[in-house]
């Protein structure tokens, strides 16, 4: 049984089915990330003065990721254009490039995550606060490479902390009042950071899976139904461009403001 307008567009709407479906899905994704961005704004505006950190994320890494994703958006489009021009080898090249760029993006993100999860803040019983990256942790002691601060508020300005000297800090376990890493439970900023970038990352992973399929086993459709295959590339590309759009806002909101 044939469903019409899977390949050729319907004359009065001018689009084929999958394109309508994908744009509708993207509209719902706008509401999804819109809800998250609204939550970010509300939480930040409601935060007591001096409790919302800035400059905790690496701007160089974020900038590189932004450029990588923008480049991958272009290679995705060129992969589609190659299909339209019936140049299959070129399609494989551009789609492969897109996959590589996507994998680089997710690796950089993974590195950023692991950096946060290795970054600890320890409140000692005598009132001092130690802040740094974890070297070792066992029953007897916690060893950080970082610095002592007098109060919690000092940690809120990340850019001011750059370049401060680091030393090895040894803390015996009985001295610890509270210990935690810069994971989601640390404060509202890390929480919304991990959820925003985590959900975005899940979308990147989903895109990687789909692109890998279309680059590999799915590309067999090129031989039998090249136009339908081209439409699939276009629709998958739309999704990928949307993921790029989300990052275009994520980067300044989380890294730069």
């Amino acid at each position, binding site marked *: 049984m044939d469903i019409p307008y899977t390949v050729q567009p319907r004359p009065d709407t001018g689009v084929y089915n999958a394109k309508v479906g994908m744009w509708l899905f993207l509209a719902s994704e706008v509401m999804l990330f819109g809800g998250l961005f609204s939550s970010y704004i509300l*939480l930040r505006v409601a935060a007591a003065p001096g409790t919302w950190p800035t400059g905790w994320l690496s701007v160089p890494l974020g900038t590189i990721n932004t450029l990588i994703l923008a480049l991958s958006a272009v290679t995705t489009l060129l992969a589609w254009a190659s299909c339209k021009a019936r140049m299959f080898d070129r399609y494989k090249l551009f789609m492969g490039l897109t996959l590589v760029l996507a994998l680089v993006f997710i690796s950089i993100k993974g590195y950023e995550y692991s950096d946060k999860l290795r970054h600890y803040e320890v409140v000692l019983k005598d009132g001092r606060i130690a802040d740094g990256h974890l070297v070792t942790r066992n029953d007897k002691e916690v060893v950080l490479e970082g610095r002592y601060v007098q109060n919690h508020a000092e940690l809120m300005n990340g850019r001011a902390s750059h370049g401060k000297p680091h030393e090895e800090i040894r803390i015996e376990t009985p001295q610890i009042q509270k210990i935690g890493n810069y994971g989601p439970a640390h404060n509202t900023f890390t929480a919304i950071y991990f959820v925003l970038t985590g959900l975005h990352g899940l979308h990147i992973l989903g895109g990687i899976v789909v692109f890998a399929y279309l680059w590999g086993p799915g590309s067999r459709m090129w031989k039998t139904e090249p136009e339908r295959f081209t439409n699939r590339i276009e629709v998958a590309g739309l999704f990928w461009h949307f993921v790029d759009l989300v990052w275009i806002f994520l980067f300044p909101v989380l890294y730069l403001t």
Partner: protein
Amino acid sequence: MASVTQTAPHAQAHGTHHEDPGFWRTYIFSIDHKVIGIQYGITALFFLLFGFSLMLMMRWQIAHPGEAVPLVGPLLAALLGDVASNGVISPDLYNSFGAMHGTIMVFLAIVPLAVGAYGNYLVPIQIGANDMAFPRLNMMSYQLYFLGGIIMFASFFIPGGAARAGWTSYSPLATTIPTDGQTFWLIGMVFLISSSLLGSVNIITTIVQLRAPGLTWMRLPFFVWAQFTASFLLLLAFPPLEVAGILQLMDRVAGTSFFLPTGLAIGGNLANVSGGGSPLLWQHLFWFLAHPEVYVLILPAMGIIAEIIACNTRKPLWGYKSLVYSAMCLGFISFLVWAHHMYLTGMGTKISTFFQTTTMIISIPSVIILTCLLISLWGGSIRFNTPMLFALAFLPMFGIGGLTGLPLGFSASDIHLHDTYYVIGHFHYVVAPGTIFALFAGIYFWFPKITGRMMNEYWGKVHFAGSILFMNLVFMPMFIQGLAGMLRRMSDGGVNYSSLKLQGVSGGLSPTIMGLNSFILWGAVGLLIAQIPFIINFFYSISHGTKVENDNPWEATTLEWQAPTPPPHGNFLTPPQVYRGPYEYSVPGYAKDYVPQNQPPG
């Protein structure tokens, strides 16, 4: 042209040879929208009955707090252990029943029935299409719904029990309740939301792209317009709730504090959380969906009623254009009213007034739709069959439900009525003798198209009489109780606020008000008994009902009645061509009092 019975050779409408797909592909993992529609329907009707039984047990507890539930008490004790020891519903179990009753009725019963079942089955046929635009996505939507339902159902049986922070799941209570049931609820919601999203993409794309030649937008049956609008509401309003669900899940599982404020104390001790969160954030995100959601509950019902009224008055609907534009306005404005559920959260006067204004404005398209349907009756040759009886009853019942919403929409009067039984009376009138009556009407109406047999008329009328009587006996007293100040979600039925208990304190609930609890319980039991003829009729008629003589027993004009009975794979033997609008009844100059949409001119 007289109605004919078309036979579809070996269930293939398109002529190409297919191998028999086997049992699993035909009935369980089918991609045919009709099978999927029936799957949605059966699953949803099961959950409707389950949600109803939860309510019955709750009404018992309200009328007889602390007494063992008759008949099912021992079963509860056996299945659920301590929370139902000796067959008595403990307060925790009552709260679980309450939260799950709401969740199940809204997300697992009504919407899957109204949109998943009715939408999936009828929309492609009414627009003259072969199937939905994305059949495999359709199957996935059902599977996600089914899995979500299993997760919700299973949550009753895990240690700690099911979710019990209301269907609204407000933080910090929902985050801090020590049961995994809340986590199950959140995961179940993620599945259900995903199912809804995929389903709405499918319905919208189908209506946009797969209309038959000649079927312009203004020739669509109003039912299709209603489904189109409802799907847009689902598409754009659900994602913020998905966000909220993810954030609450993180709060429960990952120790975040999205909704937990600084300084939160639990059981007298400072909670070990980072703080900085906002409980109101949950409420905004939740109600941003949950308000459009109630329009998803009512729009398909209005669509069903419109079809049945047009067919059974033998005249076109009055004000088709008004109906269509009102439905679209209703959908649009529904996104801008949500904080009328939050008047008592300390919002300032300016924003409260904004939401009050939009809430008042949204009553206008509602009333226009109801008025058009009412005026459609005037001068009609009304056939009082079972579907029409339910459809006629829908009009005043929805009227009562809608009008009682007005004092709730005004922020001043809502101060007195918020969280009382008045609210429960209001929304149940709209959904229970409102939407559910429409769904019943639709079952009686489209049963012959799906099965080729009619349901029994006599028992249908018995079902109708019992239902309309007992629905009113159950829900009308709740307005009185609410105005007297009886609060919702009280597991003891209000005993601790009764004037008998509060000697010498003014404002206690009088014995009359308390006595209504027993009255409502008997009404609910009567309502249960009234459903028995329906259930028997439904199953009996599948195999023993009177066979229809042709494809169009109701002599209706829309395309589904011009398809074979039941419609084969591919729906139509030849692709339909549409020449006219959907309600060409009693057209002067024609031999019969109806002209099907696909009948050629001349």
